[in-house]
């Protein structure tokens, strides 16, 4: 491997053809090779004028932000998913949608993202291009811009293929106020979509599990749906049910607000395929990671209107009411089974491990 992208690769890239080379340590050196990689992969995919200026920071006009609202929202997340490509998505789409959603569930309008990549030496350039293109598509879909970034290449074995960190800023419109501590007895709990699809898609994409499950990741931006919901009625709490799943989000709401969350098992939207895999492995769909599931807590009197607003949006077509908020037992999430039994839904201790039989 030369210390720059091979001429064959740059030629291919210029013609819009796939490159065959691999990333090596010189691509993280800060020199010409890195510049060529950034140009060929990230700038050609993201293609924004601000990023092309290649200053050490993005420069954002405050006046533009102030037009949208009165508070800045700022978030960061790192993506280390394995495998990098899975049914319904890839690490790139995940990194954009995840950060967009972290802004959205604070009621913010997502505006700009950063993108930092840590690449393992030997990573295929074609895969990097594919991931950058996916990030660009996801950003365009969400209406956000990737305005600054960083590239590091580490020796083989020092990282697992590719890690991405995305940070994002958004602006919260005046008057919007959502927070976990706002859940009140009498509120209703809503979700926009089936739970567990992303977790099972990742499980089934791993080589070690010989299960062919026709389930796709639900990765998608949720800020449009959040907007529709906020426009329809007052909203007390919002969160996307990512790592730790629905159970973790509800436990966080219950603890923050000092209330009880009661779930009705029969109303929980779970695809048959997800239910089936969970039965086989002894895992609980309540704890699977999701990438496109919004959990909303709204005042009881507005619940129907909230549900209608969610269902009217493409990201909320499967929205359902799954439970209600009560006074006691405070700080607990309780599941009601179809025939009247009740059990606590606790936070998970460590990761979910498949049972032996």
């Amino acid at each position, binding site marked *: 491997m030369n210390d720059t992208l091979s001429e064959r690769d740059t030629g291919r890239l210029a013609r819009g053809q796939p490159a065959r080379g691999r990333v090596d340590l010189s691509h993280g050196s800060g020199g010409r090779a890195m510049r060529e990689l950034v140009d060929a992969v990230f700038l050609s995919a993201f293609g924004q004028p601000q990023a092309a200026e290649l200053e050490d920071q993005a420069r954002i006009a405050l006046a533009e932000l102030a037009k949208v609202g009165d508070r800045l929202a700022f978030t960061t997340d790192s993506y280390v998913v394995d495998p990098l490509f899975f049914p319904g998505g890839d690490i790139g789409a995940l990194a954009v949608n995840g950060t967009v959603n972290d802004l959205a569930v604070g009621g913010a309008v997502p505006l700009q993202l950063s993108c930092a990549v840590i690449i393992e030496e030997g990573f295929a350039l074609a895969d990097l291009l594919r991931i950058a293109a996916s990030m660009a598509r996801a950003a365009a879909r969400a209406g956000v811009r990737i305005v600054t970034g960083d590239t590091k290449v580490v020796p083989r074995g020092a990282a697992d293929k590719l890690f991405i960190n995305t940070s994002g800023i958004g602006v919260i419109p005046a008057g919007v106020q959502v927070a976990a501590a706002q859940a009140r007895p009498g509120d209703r709990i809503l979700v926009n979509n089936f739970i567990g699809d992303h977790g099972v898609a990742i499980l089934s994409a791993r080589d*070690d599990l010989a299960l062919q499950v026709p389930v796709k990741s639900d990765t998608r931006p949720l800020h449009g749906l959040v907007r529709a919901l906020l426009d329809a009625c007052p909203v007390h709490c919002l969160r996307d049910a990512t790592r730790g799943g629905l159970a973790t989000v509800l436990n966080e709401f219950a603890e923050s607000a000092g209330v009880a969350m009661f779930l009705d098992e029969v109303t929980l939207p779970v695809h048959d395929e997800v239910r089936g895999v969970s*039965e086989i492995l002894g895992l609980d769909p309540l704890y699977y990671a999701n990438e496109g599931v919004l959990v909303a807590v709204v005042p009881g009197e507005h619940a129907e209107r909230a549900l209608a607003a969610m269902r009217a949006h493409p990201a909320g077509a499967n929205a359902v009411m799954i439970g209600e908020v009560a006074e*006691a*037992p405070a700080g607990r999430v309780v599941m009601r089974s*179809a025939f009247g039994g009740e059990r*606590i839904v*606790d936070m998970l201790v460590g990761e979910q*491990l498949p049972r032996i*039989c």
Partner: protein
Amino acid sequence: MRFIEEFRDPHRARVLLARIEQLAAQLPRRRPLQLMEVCGGHTHAIFRYGIEQLLPRNIELVHGPGCPVCVLPMGRVDDCVALAEHPNVIFTTFGDAMRVPGSRKSLLQARADGADVRMVYSPEDALKIARDNPAREVVFFALGFETTMPSTALTVLRALEEGIDNFSVFCNHITIIPTIKAILDSPDIRLDGFLGPGHVSMVIGSAPYEFICHHYRKPLVIAGFEPLDILHSIYLLLCQLVEGRCEVENQYRRVVAAGGNDAALQAVARVFELREFFEWRGLGSIDHSGVRLRGEFAHFDAERRFSVPNLKIADPKSCQCGEVLKGAIKPWQCKVFGSACTPKTPLGSLMVSSEGACAAVHSYGRLDLIRARELREESA
């Protein structure tokens, strides 16, 4: 999924619960009836669906020794860690065995410390790792009752057939019948009947349980794992008790054949032989309750291939796993339940797996306790 939904039908559940209520009312009132579900899968389902709280107050469910992870002695976990820490070993295990505490550390901690511990879903997966890594020694942590024994046996036979010589099994398989017998012989036992394990019975059939009825005069119903299976099995047990019958009944006919599974039994008999005794966590040593690989498969036996410490480590004194396993006390009556022993910091292994009685009560079943405490506080 209709096959599952049918066994979770609320209407049928209500009908069964009403019948159970009627039968329970006909029982003598001297003390609550104690029914033991032997299998950890049942324990899990009972808590997951809140079945216990739907039953009449004079029926108690006792959560038995049927979670193989829960009854694994600490010394055996130490042996696993020692094998895993061998520099050339890839140690393969089922997921839920990774958190079981040894006296020094669990397999999860051993992995964090640098051991090559890999989670697999079947012994076949471990054999594949051995095929793919011919220069490394691959050890499979085999555990479980008769349910998982056949797949280990078939994998050893496959390894033999393919001439794979870097694969071995650390055998901790245990058998259900001597264990039930040990429980029935225990002086502090006061059980009235058994929900027999569904998956184990799929392999061994129903005949091996006959002695429980003939010798100990306790009825047993082989039960499936869906909530309606469990309610139906409790109903069948109550029918027997009210009518004064004592039989082995098979509620799980859609899966369990009376004679068991011949092919599975043959593979097990070919590969394994009974150990004279085997140590159980909380229950002590039980004669003929464990198996090991026969001499002709010594090459695949990790205990013979590597040196393992093989030390007996006494259970922590404060733990009352044994009493809980035998139904002598309820999980929350244990001295350390929820204080020193929690799912995050398990002292006893009943707190480790979600099939363990203590972990199940801690994770799913504290609602009653919390409500009871709240009521007490209100009235104080």
